[in-house]
């Protein structure tokens, strides 16, 4: 790092903290910013500051939100009796794209992964169970990823929810095992949602 002027070193260090960015990528991004005009750099910096200031997590479903509740929770036309449980906010986007779902969501913000030290306590599971006690929910659809972490998470939640007398379904396994939900195309994901089964 001593080879760089301090402001560049600082930028590189910040960039390297981003997921998927190694030293090489950080260098490429830093040089791109340095070579570009000042307005472009300002726009980037403002966009980062703005998103942190205006976006938070929905207090009900933990999706991204611009106020206390996200746009989906705040929409009276959505069916509050059905909750679709997903791992990440980007999975909400994936399910929304199918146009097949009119219920609400619950974003766990991750999946159970013992080897990474992520258990139910690190996720928004408690908040889901609280919601089931407060709202009149008739079905919980488990739309976690079709990989080992997603399956384990689905099994865990099913075990908690079923004794409450609420129907628990899992999206159909038409989804290829090992994949990320967010990369599934709308047609496959829509079909998987339609052909969900009780677990």
């Amino acid at each position: 790092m001593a080879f760089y002027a301090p402001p560049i070193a600082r930028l590189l260090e910040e960039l390297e903290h981003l997921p998927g960015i190694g030293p090489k990528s950080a260098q490429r991004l830093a040089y791109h910013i340095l070579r570009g005009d000042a307005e472009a750099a300002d726009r980037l910096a403002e966009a980062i500051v703005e998103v942190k200031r205006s976006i938070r997590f929905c207090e009900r479903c933990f999706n991204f939100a611009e106020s206390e509740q996200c746009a989906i929770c705040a929409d009276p036309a959505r069916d509050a009796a059905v909750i679709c449980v997903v791992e990440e906010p980007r999975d909400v986007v994936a399910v929304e794209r199918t146009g097949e779902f009119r219920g609400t969501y619950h974003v766990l913000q991750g999946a159970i992964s013992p080897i990474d030290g992520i258990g139910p306590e690190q996720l928004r599971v408690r908040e889901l169970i609280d919601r089931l006690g407060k709202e009149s929910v008739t079905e919980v659809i488990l739309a976690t990823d079709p990989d080992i972490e997603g399956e384990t998470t689905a099994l865990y939640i099913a075990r908690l929810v079923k004794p409450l007398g609420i129907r628990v379904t899992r999206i159909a396994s038409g989804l290829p095992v090992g994949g990320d939900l967010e990369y599934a195309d709308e047609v496959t994901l829509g079909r998987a949602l339609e052909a969900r089964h009780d677990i």
Partner: protein
Amino acid sequence: MPSHRVRALSLKKTKLGETDLIVTFLAEDGCQIRAVAKGARKPGSRFGGRVEPFTVVDMLLHTGRTLETISDAEIVTSHAAIREDYDRAQAASVVADFLDKVSVECQTEDRLFALACATLDAMDGAEDDALLALVVAFLLKGMAMHGYRPQFDACAVCGSRAGAGEIRFALELGGPACEACSGAGDEAVWLSGDARAACKALMSAKMAEVAELGVPHGVLAEAFGVMRAFVVYHVPAKLKALGMYSAEVLRATRE
């Protein structure tokens, strides 16, 4: 690009870039392999679920500049029933976590792979109450292969026979220390006569026979606690899955 075939057990996956995975394997010869599965997170990927943890695969690997790349993978054993049950998945995670932390690249240990497969095979069809016994047996045998064979009968320093019943199990020595040999600062834990007998039985039983031993849960929970302390003492890396499993064992014991 040079390539080679290898049979291996998938232990762990880490996301790489947009759609790739880095998968950590235990190879048949006991070496650890980290290899890239390109596009594995895209639906319709040719890997499908074939590199998911707990799966045994035959792979073709290409040696790249830094990491190896998987160009083909065929399932040998999927251990699908582990993935269909929460408790089995938790127990199997302890196995994968331990193997991930003790195995090293290019360091062979022939028996480790066979132990791992026998353990997961047994867990694949196991009832809930057999899982803890399998975890304890695995940790006992795994530590022995890792160079820390626990002893339960003779003083681990001078070899004099320990009496019957309860012993103080010295973590550094991996066995009881007699009164003459016990140093003041030694970290040790009590091991009751029942748990000591259970450890010996589990140590010598085949994995497929562990469930039939019928060791009561309370005794297993105690043996697990001692083995966990022993593993934590000797394995420098933090075993997060072991920590999580331990919390569940405590919860189940209190109920």
